[in-house]
């Protein structure tokens, strides 16, 4: 009897996870393996693919577009991710103050995160407009000549970085805030009794205690920044002169505009490897540095 109940329960268990697991396997797991395999082929869209070994990879390392995209992506990760990390934490410390009821302010800081990337990209194109845009209006007040932000290869990427920070910090603020509220008040009191100033309290008490949160945000935010694509496709299409093209923008262009699926898969594999290396070193570094265990 007992065996029979156990068997029936196991069958029901498998049945109940089946729909979820099937989709999970075919949407996440199999595609990762297929990407790796396709990267070794000259897969297009209709023709039968041929195995071509590392030919795609050899070509990618001489591909000016990819090298430019790699460079732009790293710049974006460095500045946008760093900006979001620092400003997000600063905002969290600000709204965590017990003196002021800050719920409405929090909602305001978070609103850009909820709005669609397409929508905010279009609003920013309008604000960056060379003749009628807000940013050039400000420049004019200070007597500076107007800049055609998104058509100028020096300014397009910085503009996209600033927008990325504006859109993303609300999320970091909320997660950091949750981390801060989990810190026991008595730690602060003890530190102040011991004569620590505010700066010392932050670096010696608060920051170590919320470092698991910081580390989590560091990893996930970095992965998101490495995959930046939507705002580029909407705002500049990778231009001017490839000044804003990113790795994912190259993958999209190769795979879905030029139908070079094999080549684009090899680029995807390189992106995965790149992120893997960064995540690996982040783990190594954090364990040595602050003893954070994930």
């Amino acid at each position, binding site marked *: 009897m007992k065996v029979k109940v156990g068997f029936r*329960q*196991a069958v*029901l*268990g*498998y049945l*109940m*996870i089946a*729909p979820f*697991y099937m*989709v*999970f396997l075919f949407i*996440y797991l199999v*595609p*990762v393996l297929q*990407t790796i395999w396709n990267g070794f082929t000259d897969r297009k869209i209709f023709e039968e693919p041929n195995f071509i070994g590392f030919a795609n990879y050899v070509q990618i390392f001489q591909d000016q577009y990819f090298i430019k995209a790699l460079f732009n992506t790293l710049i974006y990760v460095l500045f946008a991710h760093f900006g979001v990390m620092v400003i997000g934490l600063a905002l969290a410390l*600000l709204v965590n*103050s017990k*003196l*002021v009821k800050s719920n409405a*302010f929090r*909602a*305001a800081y*978070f*609103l*850009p995160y*909820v*709005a*669609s*990337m*397409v*929508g905010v*990209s*279009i*609003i*920013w*194109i*309008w*604000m960056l*407009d060379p*003749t*009628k845009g*807000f940013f050039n209006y400000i420049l004019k007040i200070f007597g500076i000549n107007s800049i055609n932000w998104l058509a100028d290869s020096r300014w397009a990427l910085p503009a996209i970085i600033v927008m990325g920070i*504006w859109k993303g910090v609300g999320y970091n603020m*909320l*997660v950091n805030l949750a981390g801060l509220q989990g810190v026991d008040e008595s730690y602060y009191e003890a530190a102040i009794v011991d004569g620590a100033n505010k700066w010392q309290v932050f670096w010696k008490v608060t920051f170590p205690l919320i470092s698991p949160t910081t580390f989590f945000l560091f990893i*996930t935010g970095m*992965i*998101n920044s490495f*995959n930046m*694509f939507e705002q580029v*496709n909407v705002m500049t299409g990778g231009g001017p002169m490839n000044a804003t093209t990113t790795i*994912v923008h190259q*993958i*999209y262009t190769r*795979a879905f505009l030029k139908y070079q*699926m094999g080549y684009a*898969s090899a680029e*995807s594999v390189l992106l*995965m490897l790149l*992120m893997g290396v960064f995540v690996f070193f982040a783990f190594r570094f954090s364990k040595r540095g602050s003893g954070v265990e994930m």
Partner: protein
Amino acid sequence: MKNKMKIKKMALYVVMAVLAMIFLFPFLIMLLTAFKSPAELQQPYFSLFPKEFSLDNFIGAMSTGNWARYFANSIFITAVTVLASLFLNSMAAYAFTRLKFPGRDLLFAFSLVALMIPEQVIMIPVFLELKTFPLAGGNDIFGVGGTGLLNTYAGLIIPFVAHPFGVFLCRQFFMTLPKSLDEAAVLDGCSRFRVFWNIYLPLSKPTLVTLGLLKAVTTWNQYTWPLILTNKDEMRTVQLALSNFSTEFVTNWGYVMAATTLIILPVAILFLCLQKYYVSGIISSGVKG
């Protein structure tokens, strides 16, 4: 001392208000531009407030192109994705929490791998899988000959219904419920599926609202996947339509800002009304909805 406190409080308010202004300012520009008249937008300089408020841009933008269809597409896709993902993920979560079967914990842990895989690096094979889906869109049983699930609702929905984070969050909640609940119900002759459906689901409403809300916002805001999967006008979602609209009407900013307003507004309202749920989801996630 008391005075010092007061000054500090005032200063905090001012700083926070200025920051709020910076974060909201682009949305304000969006709204005010949408209400300007075409003549006013012809002026070759920046101005913040419209001289008179007019609704012409909203009417004009919405009657240019197939907006009723785009909105219907997005609403349908969002609703089905939310409902299907809630059902699939909570059902799997129940099995992972309360049913005993070989390999259960390993299978669960393994599914969390997906949280580390960004959709951008796997979009090519998923696209090819859907294109060669057997017996769909003119395909034969081997997935050859037609367009498969390209340009279909199924293709826009299926990739997003399995969500390991949703399973994870439901499981976290289910584990807080007492096991005796299941045992009592089973003794009364209730099947295990009924226990999930009639007892667990109604008890986990806050978790489901949180997950549904996160999913609704991400689905509504989705751009990359519809861009890749569809090329027919009648299958466009609002985000895709908006990005095309903005390149087509690049000289008519009143229209573009009116359309942008109408597309951001539903999500903004949803967020502001259900903030508590959304924030609790964001805090327990970290991984995008």
